[in-house]
C-alpha cells in the first residue's frame, strides 16, 4: 500500500496526508477531477453564503461609497459622499468619542480581565464558581443588561443603585448619563461588565499553559510576585495579550448598542455619539446609505491601520 511506503520525514509537520493524496500516483485524471468536484460540492453552501453576505458586500460597500442613489437612479459622484460625511458636525465628535471609549476600555476592559485571570489562577478553591460568575453577564442579551444599567444603576436621582452606594459612602453622587463627562466612563463600566468574561477565560487557559518550572526558577533567583508577573507571566502570554488587544480595539471601535440604549443615541451634548451610531443614523434615518457606506470605509481604513501596527509589533517580537 502506498500509505505505508510514504516515509515519515516527507510528511509536513502537523498535517497528515489526506487519504486521497496518499493514493497511488497513477490515479486517473478523471478520478482527480471527480475528487475535486466532490470537495467543492461540500464547500458550495458555505462559500455561496460568504459570497453573498460577506465578500460581495465588502466590495459593494466600497463601490457604494463613490455612488449616490436618488429616486432609483445611481450615479458616480467621486468623493462627494466622503466630503459630505466629514462635513457632518458630529463626524469629529463621533471619532473623538469612539477613540476615548476605546482608550478607556483598554485601561479598564483589558487590564482588569488579565489581573482577574491571574488572581483566579492562583485559587485552588471555588474556581468553577468564580469562572461561571465572570462569564454569566456575557450570556445576557446586551439589550437586557443595558436596560438594567440605564434604569436602575445610572438613575440620576438618589434612587439609583450607584448613587445610593456613593451616598452611603458619603461620596458625591453623579448625574451619570445626563452628565457629558460621565457618559463615556459609565458606558465603559457597563460594557466591561457585560463583556469581560470571555477575555478572562481565554487568559485563564493561556495561564495554565505556562510551565511551572519558569516560576520556580524565577523564585530561586529571588524574584518577587510582581517581577514574576513581569518576567514570566507577561512574556509567556504575550501573543494572547497582543491578540486580545487587537480584538478588543476592533470590538470597541464598533461601539453602538451602549450609546443607543444608555444614552438614547447621541447622549447629553453629543457625548455618546459613536462612529457606528453615525453610520446607523445616516444609513437608516437620514436615508443616506451612500454616506453611511463611505463612513464604513473610513472606519475600515482606520481599523486596518491598527491591524498593520499589530502585525508589525507581533512580528518584531518573534
Amino acid at each position: 500500500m502506498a500509505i505505508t511506503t510514504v516515509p515519515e520525514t516527507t510528511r509536513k509537520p502537523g498535517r497528515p496526508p489526506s487519504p486521497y493524496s496518499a493514493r497511488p500516483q497513477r490515479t486517473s485524471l478523471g478520478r482527480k477531477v471527480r475528487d475535486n468536484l466532490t470537495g467543492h460540492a461540500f464547500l458550495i453552501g458555505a462559500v455561496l453564503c460568504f459570497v453573498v453576505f460577506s465578500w460581495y458586500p465588502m466590495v459593494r460597500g466600497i463601490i457604494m461609497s463613490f455612488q449616490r442613489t436618488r429616486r432609483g437612479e445611481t450615479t458616480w459622484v467621486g468623493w462627494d459622499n466622503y466630503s459630505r460625511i466629514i462635513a457632518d458636525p458630529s463626524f469629529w465628535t463621533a471619532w473623538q468619542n469612539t477613540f476615548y471609549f476605546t482608550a478607556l476600555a483598554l485601561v479598564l476592559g483589558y487590564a482588569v480581565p488579565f489581573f482577574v485571570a491571574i488572581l483566579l489562577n492562583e485559587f485552588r478553591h471555588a474556581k468553577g464558581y468564580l469562572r461561571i460568575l465572570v462569564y454569566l453577564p456575557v450570556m445576557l442579551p446586551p439589550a437586557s443588561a443595558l436596560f438594567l444599567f440605564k434604569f436602575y444603576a445610572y438613575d440620576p436621582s438618589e434612587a439609583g443603585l450607584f448613587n445610593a452606594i456613593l451616598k452611603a459612602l458619603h461620596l458625591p453622587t453623579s448625574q451619570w448619563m445626563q452628565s457629558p463627562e460621565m457618559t463615556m466612563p459609565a458606558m465603559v463600566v457597563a460594557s466591561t461588565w457585560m463583556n469581560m468574561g470571555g477575555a478572562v477565560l481565554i487568559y485563564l487557559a493561556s495561564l495554565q499553559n505556562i510551565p511551572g518550572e519558569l516560576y520556580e526558577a524565577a523564585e530561586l533567583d529571588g524574584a518577587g510576585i510582581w517581577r514574576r508577573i513581569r518576567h514570566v507571566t507577561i512574556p509567556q502570554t504575550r501573543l494572547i495579550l497582543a491578540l486580545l488587544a487587537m480584538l478588543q480595539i476592533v470590538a470597541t471601535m464598533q461601539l453602538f448598542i451602549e450609546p443607543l440604549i444608555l444614552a438614547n443615541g447621541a447622549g447629553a451634548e453629543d457625548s455618546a455619539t459613536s462612529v457606528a451610531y453615525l453610520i446607523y443614523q445616516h444609513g437608516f434615518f437620514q436615508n443616506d446609505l451612500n454616506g453611511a457606506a463611505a463612513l464604513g470605509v473610513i472606519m475600515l481604513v482606520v481599523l486596518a491601520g491598527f491591524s498593520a501596527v499589530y502585525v508589525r509589533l507581533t512580528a518584531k517580537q518573534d
Partner: protein
Amino acid sequence: MAQDSGTRTLISHSQLSRGRGKVIYWTLLVVVVAGFTLVFLGPLYWMVTGALKSGQEIAQTPPSLFPKDPQPQNYIDAWNNLALAKLLFNTFYYAIGAVLFQLVFDSAAAYSLSKLRPMFGNVILALMLGTLMIPAMVLIVPQYVTVLDLPILHINLLDSPFAIWLPMVANAFNIFLLKRFFDSIPEELMAAALMDGASSLRTLWSIILPLSRPILGVVSIFAVTAVWKDFLWPKLVMPSPETRTVSVGIYTFAGGTPMNVVIAASVIAAIPTVIIFLIFQRNIMSGLTTGSIKG
C-alpha cells in the same frame, strides 16, 4: 486543563498552605468570592427583584433591598403588553434555524477543507478567515442593501428568517473550530472507510460527525446565543412587529412602557440564555478557549 492539578503557578503551593501565606490566601479567597458574587450576581438580583417593585418603590430613596410589596403583575404585564410569547417564539425559531443551517453548511465546508482538500481549498479558507478581520459595522450597510435585493435572484429577504439564517452560515470562526476538530480525527479512519467503498458523504455522516459531537454542541450553543444576543442586524432586517426578536421588541416598547415592566421583560428575555449557559457551561468554556488558544 485540570482544575486543581498540582501544576505550579505564580505562587507556590507550599507558600500558600503554610503560616502567613495560608491566612492571606483564605482572606483573599473570601474577599474575592464575596466581591465577585456582589459584582456579577448582584445586578441580576437587582434586576429580578427590581422588576417586582411598584413604580413608587423604584423612585424611593434610598432604594430598598427587598421589594416591600412584590408586584408579580409587572411580569404579567410585560408578558401581555409586549407580546413576549410571540417575540420569544420568533427568536427561538431564528436560533434553531441558524443552528441547522450552520451545522449542515459549515460542517460540510469544514469537512471538505479538512479531509477532501480540493484545489484552492486553502485560498478559500484564507478568504473566509479574512472576514474575521472585517468589523461587522463596516458591512452593515452593503449587507442590508444586499438583503433588500439579492444579486441575480432579485429577492427581497426583509422579514424573512433567511435574512438571519444565511448570513449566520458565513461564520469563519465556526468553520475554523470545526476544521480544527476534524483535523484531529485520524486519517486512518478515513482511509479505512474509503477502502470499504464509502462515499465522502457517507464518511462524513457515519464517521466524522459521530466523533465530533462535542464540537458540534459547541457550535450549536454559539449559534443560539449569537442569534439571541444580536441586536442591530435583526432590528434592520426584521422590521415588522410580527417578525421582531425579543431584544428588538423590548427596545421598541421601552419608550412608552413603565420601566419596571421593561426590566421585567428584560429578565424574561435573559432567562433562556442563562439556562443554556448553566446547563452547557463546560462545553461553552472549553469551546471558547480551544478556539482561541491554539489559533
